[in-house]
């Protein structure tokens, strides 16, 4: 049972009343999270936890201190308020800091599904058992995880901000494995009713069976179809390396100095929208500032980056509502990304490729050159050779080393269907892509 808005409001008021700082912010998280993990077609880990976090940001002049606790007695709260103030007192003046945000109207968005919040260990086990049964029937092995959670966040500050939001998540994935192949499927939703074990299992089993007996393929440059599972990695790294105001202002972003320029193909449009019903919405950021839709790349033209109050203040711009919790030093980041869908059926994308590779999913991707967004990583869980518009053979996994910015200039087709997926921060909704000239730099043995 989570505390709820009234209790969190009372709690925030109590913390604010304890503070002697010129400005004070309190950030409250409360969650109930459970995860059932399975491998070798049985449940081997099954966990649940109830957590709370309180973070206090104290401001004296232009000095800031942040302290946190999960202990909720008055004594502990007073201690954490005093610790934040003590840290602030030892700080140096930060001339770039202007103020904690003033109150602004925050929209209410519905991200709560009661049946997800009430989903219990027996319910999760029933879904997992169905997946494991499907695996046994197909003579493959199932592994994966099924997480359900209910959480609340509240932000209040001494200038009058109070914002509250609650959400539920159901997040499941499974990997089906044979001795020499694997297939993957995943779902993410606010509503656990969107998770259907047999459907999920069927998708992963199909991919696993089709990728059996893989052949080796020489690394090189190939046209590719990136399934939405793989394409989401592009958004993750664009966001992490370049869509935030911090790398932009420090000239470390591919967006730095290039606003208004064509940096991607005209068919590429990317935005962040925390209020859309097509995402798992979150109406405000961790400073309590309402989220605004931010057009990041529009028809290939670099359009903007996201701000919090601190980095916005440095440019005289308002926050776009993308602050991370106080104390984080990465700067603001987008958390509800969208890559605009196209109008192509995936079958038509496949039919258009003379010789290329179908990539189901990427794995262990890491930036090699941040400014050029060059990333390396592996394919995983279903990689196939395409010849004359058809999948002709499963292939052993390949390593790629590829600039994601270059890739966005080589997108030839975009699927009309999109998928909601967990991102590096938050979630993203992504279509599948046909990309010309993807650079595979190595190969592995399986």
């Amino acid at each position, binding site marked *: 049972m989570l505390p709820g808005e009234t209790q969190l409001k009372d709690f925030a008021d109590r913390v604010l009343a304890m503070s002697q700082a010129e400005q004070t912010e309190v950030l409250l998280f409360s969650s109930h999270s459970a995860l059932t993990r399975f*491998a070798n077609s049985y449940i081997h880990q099954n966990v649940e936890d109830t957590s709370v976090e309180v973070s206090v940001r104290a401001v004296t002049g232009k000095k800031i*201190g942040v302290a946190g606790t*999960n202990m909720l007695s008055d004594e502990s709260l007073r201690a954490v308020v005093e610790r934040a103030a003590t840290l602030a007192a030892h700080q140096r003046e930060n001339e770039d800091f202007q103020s904690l945000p003033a109150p602004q109207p925050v929209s209410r968005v519905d991200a709560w599904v009661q049946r997800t919040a009430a989903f219990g260990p027996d319910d999760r086990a029933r879904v997992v058992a169905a997946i494991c049964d499907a695996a046994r029937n197909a003579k493959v092995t199932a*592994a994966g995880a099924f997480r359900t959670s209910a959480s609340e966040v509240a932000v209040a500050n001494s200038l009058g901000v109070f914002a509250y939001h609650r959400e539920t998540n159901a997040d499941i994935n499974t990997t089906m494995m044979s001795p020499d192949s694997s297939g993957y499927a995943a779902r993410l939703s606010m509503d656990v009713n969107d998770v259907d074990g047999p459907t999920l299992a069927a998708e992963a089993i199909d991919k696993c069976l089709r990728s059996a007996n893989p052949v080796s393929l020489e690394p090189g440059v190939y046209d590719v179809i990136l399934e939405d599972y793989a394409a989401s990695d592009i958004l993750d790294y664009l966001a992490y390396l370049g869509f935030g105001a911090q790398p932009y202002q420090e000239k470390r972003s591919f967006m730095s100095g290039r606003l208004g320029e064509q940096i991607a193909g005209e068919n590429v449009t990317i935005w962040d929208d925390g209020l859309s019903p097509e995402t798992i919405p979150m109406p405000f950021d961790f400073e309590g500032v309402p989220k605004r839709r931010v057009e990041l790349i529009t028809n290939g033209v670099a359009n903007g980056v996201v701000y919090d109050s601190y980095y916005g203040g440095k440019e005289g711009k308002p926050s776009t509502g993308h602050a991370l919790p106080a104390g984080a030093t990465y700067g603001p980041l987008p958390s509800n990304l969208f890559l605009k869908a196209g109008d192509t059926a995936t079958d038509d994308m496949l039919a258009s490729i003379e010789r290329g590779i179908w990539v189901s999913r990427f794995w262990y991707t890491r930036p090699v050159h941040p400014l050029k967004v060059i990333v390396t990583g592996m394919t995983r869980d279903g990689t196939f050779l395409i010849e004359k518009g058809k999948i002709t053979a499963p292939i052993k996994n390949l390593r790629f080393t590829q600039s994601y910015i270059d890739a966005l200039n080589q997108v030839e087709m975009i699927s009309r269907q999109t998928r909601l997926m967990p991102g590096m921060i938050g979630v993203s909704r992504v279509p599948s892509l046909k990309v010309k000239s993807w650079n595979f*730099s190595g190969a592995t043995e399986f």
Partner: protein
Amino acid sequence: MRDLVSRALDTASQQGAAYADTRVVERRAESITVRNQNVEGLTADESLGFGVRVIVDGYWGFAGSYRMTPEEADRVAAKAVAIARASARAGGPRADIGPPEVHVDTYRTPFRIDPFAVSLDDKIALLLRVNEAMMKVKSIVMAESNVYYQREKKTFGSSEGSFIEQDLVETGCGIGATAVDEGEVQQRSYPNSVGRHQGTEGWEFVERWDLAGNAPRVADEAAALLTAKPCPVGVTTVILDGSQLALQVHESCGHAVELDRVLGTEAAYAGTSFLTTDKLGNFRYGSDAVNLTADATIPGGLGTFGYDDEGVLAQSTPLVSSGLFVGYLTSRETAASLGQHSNGAMRAHDFNRIPLIRMTNVSLEPGEWTLADLIAATDDGIYMETNRSWSIDQRRLNFQFGTELAREIKNGKLGDLVKNATYAGMTPQFWGSCDAVCNRDHRVVWGTPNCGKGQPEQIAHTGHGAAPARFRNVQVGLMK
């Protein structure tokens, strides 16, 4: 804490648990980060909570909470039992954790200077001084310096009769400078990249690494890399510095010998391992020069502790001996499946997470060479230092790493600076090409405070002893 631990264990047993353990974790941590002369991060965090892990009818369950009351101990223990009963729904083998482990003991990290007792003003002044020194260098657009320190008090009790109290202290520090010019970005870090280097020590750790003395060099090197030669493409000899080698050990050996991965229980996320059980004792992992050990008792190592989170005593285990694969990192359950005894590698990220098999201090044992002699004995090749990127496949075979800095080696001497250096290979072939490891004088137990594994994801702190080493016939220069 003893009362709450006992209460939870009693309730779990009454509810039907054949085995139960309870961990109480109290953590205090402080972090200071200076970026571009602003103290952008100054945080102090504390947390307290407990978790109850049970086996009921052969199936696992776990629940955790932050509410430290007897009633909550009852609720959480009962919940763990109910979850274990739900686990049985999907069938599968029953858990066997082998013979009982009973220890009643205490352990405390030895340290000289309590990091929490050092004046906050002195800490901030040090980081600002270091930051200022880096910002003086032209082309530096971002300078960052940080310190982090934590104290963790763990209380472990089990239904087998163990009761262990540990008081663990860690301290870490790091600096970095980023230079930008004409479409190029270069970074240098010290003592290690990806944030910081860390150990189970006190503030003496920060003093020993002399951030101020190294800041000008770090910034100069970042600026110089902007106009350095690009990494050549081809197959050549590579000498890796100790910090890069530490990550190579972490990724291609440490994860590969985790027996839970080998047995498939991490398959859907972190992956499995090419070091399957049929290879134990007969697979040539590397050359005769390659000796790898997991040792949780190294003083100051980030993977050093008294007991793991199953209450198993910290110990040293050979993994690769003269190139031969001889050992895994194990838990009680996975060790029992091989008829072995756990070597104490189970650790949890916090009170609300179950322990998983994690690296302790997984190290490459030193050889006989000095670095100067090793370079002098290398006609042609590349010296690479400090990790910049890392990626490896889910069976820990195909890898690609990049380093912040590299230098040509020509006729036994270090030559021109090289930027954007990368190298790649397959794990057994790569370690098979290792023909020289530097000696104990060059060895550092590098701390990796950011090792991710498990679902929900857990971050482990691991250590890796490594001295520079040489590898032949390595593919370099893979960036398009």
